[in-house]
C-alpha cells in the first residue's frame, strides 16, 4: 500500500496503485477500485483508502479530431492542457474549462466541472457527446445523450463510481485568438456585485469575482469583478505549455499564512492599481495558479480545505453574507475567495453540482477542529438555504449534509459498479455519516 492524498493534502490514505496503460485492457480483478485522473480534486473523491486506485495518466492518446467541426475524441487520461496544445493552433478552445488545465478528461466528466462561462455554456458535461464506460464485469457501454442515456446521466458528475470512463468525445468552441479581452472593476458589497453581474453577463462570456473575505461591516463582500471575452486579433501562434513549470519545492511553514499575512495580501490585491481593460494571454486569464506547480504546498504539511457552495438566487444575498460574516468572525482567513453566478442551464448529470444560483469558493488552511467547526457552521447555512456543496472540493461534509444537497443519491446508487468505491462515497453514505 502506498501513501496517497489529493490536491488539498487532506485526508491522507493508504491505497494500492494499479496504473492503466491501454483502453482495451480489462479492469483488474479487485473488490474495490476507483479511477484516478490528475488528483486535482481537493478532498477524497479521488481516493480509495485501504483499496485500489487506477491512475489513468497513461491513457493519454488522442483518437480522432475533426478540425472542421471541432469534435475531439480522446482517452480519458488526456489532460485539458494537452487538448489545448493540440486544438488551439487550429482555432478551437474548450467549451468549458475549470480554473486549472491540469485535469484529465475523465476527471472533468466525473465531477462535471464548471468554468467562468457557466451562465452561458453550462457545465463540462453539456459538451460531452459520447464516452465509453467500462464496467468491472467487462461490459463496455457506449454512452451518449441518445444511447444508454441513463448511464450517461449517472456517469457525468458520477464521481467515478459507475466504472471506468475509457474515452470521451467532446465538442469544442471556435476561437480566433489566444488572447482574452479582460475588464476589471470593483464592487463595494454583495448587493453591488449582484447588480454589476446582471449588467456584465449580457456582454461578457466569462465572468467571475474575487471577494475580500476579511472585510467586515460596511465593507463586507467588497471585491473585484473580472470579465473576459475571447479576443479577435487572429493571434493563434503562441506556444503553449502542457506541463506545470515552476514548482513550490518545499512546504511553507504554517505560520506564513496567519490572519495578518492573508489580510495584507487581500488588501494589497484589492488596492493594486489595475488597468480597467486589457488584453491578456489565455493562460493568465484562465489558469493563473497553474504557473506555480504544487502551490498547494503553500499551506504546509497539514493541508487545507476548500469550501465551495451554491445558493439559489432568491436566497443568495442573505446566505452569502451570513457565510462571510461567519468567516470574518472566526478569523480563519481565506486566501482565495471566488464568487460566480451559475446560469439556468440544467446540469446534465444526476449528481452534478452546478445548479442555478450564486457559487462561492474559498480555501482555508487546516487548523484542525477549529476549522472543521467553522465548515460545519457554513454547511448549516447552506442547508438552510437549499444550497449544495461541491464534492470535488470536499473532505469533511457529513452524510446528512450530502444527502440533503444531493437527494438523487439513492436513484444514483443503482448505477454504482459493485467493484467501485471511494473514500468520499463511504464517508457520506455510511451509517456513521448519518448524524
Amino acid at each position, binding site marked *: 500500500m502506498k501513501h496517497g492524498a489529493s490536491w488539498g493534502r487532506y485526508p491522507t490514505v493508504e491505497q494500492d496503485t494499479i496504473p492503466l496503460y491501454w483502453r482495451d485492457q480489462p479492469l483488474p480483478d479487485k473488490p474495490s477500485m476507483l479511477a484516478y485522473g490528475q488528483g486535482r480534486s481537493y478532498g477524497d473523491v479521488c481516493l480509495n483508502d485501504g483499496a485500489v486506485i487506477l491512475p489513468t495518466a497513461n491513457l493519454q492518446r488522442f483518437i480522432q479530431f475533426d478540425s472542421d467541426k471541432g469534435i475531439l475524441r*480522446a482517452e480519458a487520461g488526456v489532460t485539458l492542457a494537452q487538448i489545448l496544445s493540440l486544438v488551439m493552433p487550429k482555432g478551437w478552445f474548450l467549451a468549458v474549462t475549470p480554473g486549472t488545465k491540469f485535469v484529465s478528461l475523465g476527471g472533468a466528466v466525473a465531477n462535471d466541472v464548471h468554468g467562468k462561462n457557466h451562465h452561458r455554456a453550462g457545465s463540462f458535461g453539456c459538451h460531452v457527446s459520447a464516452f465509453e464506460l467500462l464496467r468491472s464485469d467487462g461490459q463496455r457501454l457506449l454512452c451518449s445523450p441518445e444511447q444508454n442515456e441513463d448511464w450517461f446521466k449517472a456517469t457525468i458528475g458520477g464521481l467515478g463510481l459507475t466504472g471506468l470512463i475509457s474515452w470521451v468525445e467532446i465538442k469544442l468552441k471556435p476561437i480566433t485568438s489566444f488572447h482574452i479581452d479582460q475588464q476589471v472593476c470593483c464592487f463595494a458589497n454583495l448587493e453591488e456585485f449582484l447588480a454589476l453581474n446582471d449588467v456584465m453577463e449580457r456582454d461578457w462570456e466569462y465572468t467571475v469575482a474575487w471577494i475580500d473575505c476579511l472585510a467586515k461591516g460596511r465593507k463586507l463582500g467588497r471585491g473585484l469583478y473580472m470579465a473576459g471575452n475571447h479576443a479577435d486579433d487572429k493571434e493563434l501562434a503562441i506556444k503553449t505549455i502542457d506541463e506545470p513549470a515552476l514548482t513550490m519545492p518545499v512546504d511553507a511553514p504554517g505560520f506564513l499564512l496567519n490572519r495578518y499575512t492573508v489580510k495584507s495580501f487581500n488588501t494589497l490585491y484589492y488596492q493594486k492599481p489595475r488597468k480597467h481593460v486589457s488584453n491578456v494571454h489565455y493562460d493568465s486569464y484562465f489558469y493563473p495558479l497553474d504557473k506555480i506547480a504544487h502551490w498547494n504546498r503553500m499551506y504546509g504539511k497539514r493541508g487545507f480545505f476548500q469550501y465551495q457552495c451554491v445558493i439559489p438566487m432568491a436566497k443568495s444575498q442573505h446566505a452569502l453574507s451570513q457565510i462571510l460574516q461567519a468567516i470574518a468572525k472566526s478569523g480563519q482567513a481565506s486566501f482565495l475567495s471566488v464568487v460566480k453566478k451559475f446560469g439556468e442551464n440544467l446540469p446534465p448529470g444526476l449528481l452534478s453540482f452546478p445548479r442555478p444560483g450564486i457559487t462561492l469558493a474559498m480555501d482555508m488552511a487546516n487548523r484542525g477542529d477549529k476549522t472543521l467547526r467553522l465548515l460545519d457552521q457554513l454547511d448549516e447555512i447552506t442547508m438552510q438555504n437549499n444550497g449544495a456543496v461541491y464534492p470535488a472540493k470536499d473532505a469533511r461534509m457529513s452524510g446528512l449534509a450530502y444527502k440533503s444537497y444531493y437527494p438523487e443519491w439513492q436513484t444514483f446508487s443503482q448505477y454504482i459498479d459493485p467493484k467501485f468505491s471511494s473514500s468520499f462515497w463511504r464517508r457520506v453514505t455510511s451509517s456513521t455519516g448519518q448524524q
Partner: protein
Amino acid sequence: MKNILILGATSAIAERFAQRYANQDCRFYLVSRNQIRLDNVADDLRVRGAKDVITESLDLTETSGHNHFMTSVIGRLEHIDIALIAYGSLSNQPACEGDSELSLKELNTNCLSVISLLTLLANVFEKQASGCIAVISSVAGDRGRQSNYIYGTAKGALTIFLQGLRNRLDRKGVHVLTIKPGFVDTPMTQDFKKGLLWVSPKSIAKGIENAIKRKKDTVYLPFFWRYIMLIIKFIPERIFKRMSL
C-alpha cells in the same frame, strides 16, 4: 518529410518518442505484435499531425521472418531517416536460472533478434549513406549483477555489437546511437516500487530526440546514470562479487 521506423512501437518509451516527432512532418512505420494497440498508437499520431502511419503486427523475435519484413519496409519507405529499436522484455531472472530454454529465449528477444534486424538494417543504411539507427539498450548491460544478469547479458552484448556497427558505419555517414536508460516507469517495470531515481518515459523520449539531434554515440538517460554506472564499474570484482546488487 522524415521516415521513421519503430520496432516495438507499443513500448511506452517508443510511443512518447513518436509523439514528439508527430508534428514534424513525419511518416511512421510502426511494428509490434499487438495490432489493436498499434492502431491506438497510430490514431494518436495521426491526430497529432503525422503525415502517414503504416502499421504491421509481427513478432520480431521470430528471426526467420526478418528478410521478408525488411524487404517490405524498404518497399514502402524507400529511405529511412530514423530507425528506433525499442522492443524488449525484462527477463525474470530467478525463472531463467531454473530454465535454460527460457534464458535463451530472453537472450533472443533482447539481443539475438535485435542483432539479426540490425544486420539487415545496417546494409540499408550503409547504402543510403545517411540516417540514424537508435537502439534502446540499458544500464543493466554495463555490468553483470546477480539480480538481472540474463537481461544484462543481452543488453551488454547489444551494446558491444552497436560499438562495432558504429565503427563500421560512421565513415558512411550513418549515425548509430546506443541509448542506456536507467529506471523508467513503464508497463515493463509496473511491479517495481518506485523511488527517487525513477523517471517518466516522456523524459526518456526527449533525451533520445536530443541525442539524435546532437549525433551522440551513447547516451545515458537521465544523464546521472553515466556517473552511477561509472562507480559501479569501478568497484573491484573481488568486492563486487560479494555485494548484492
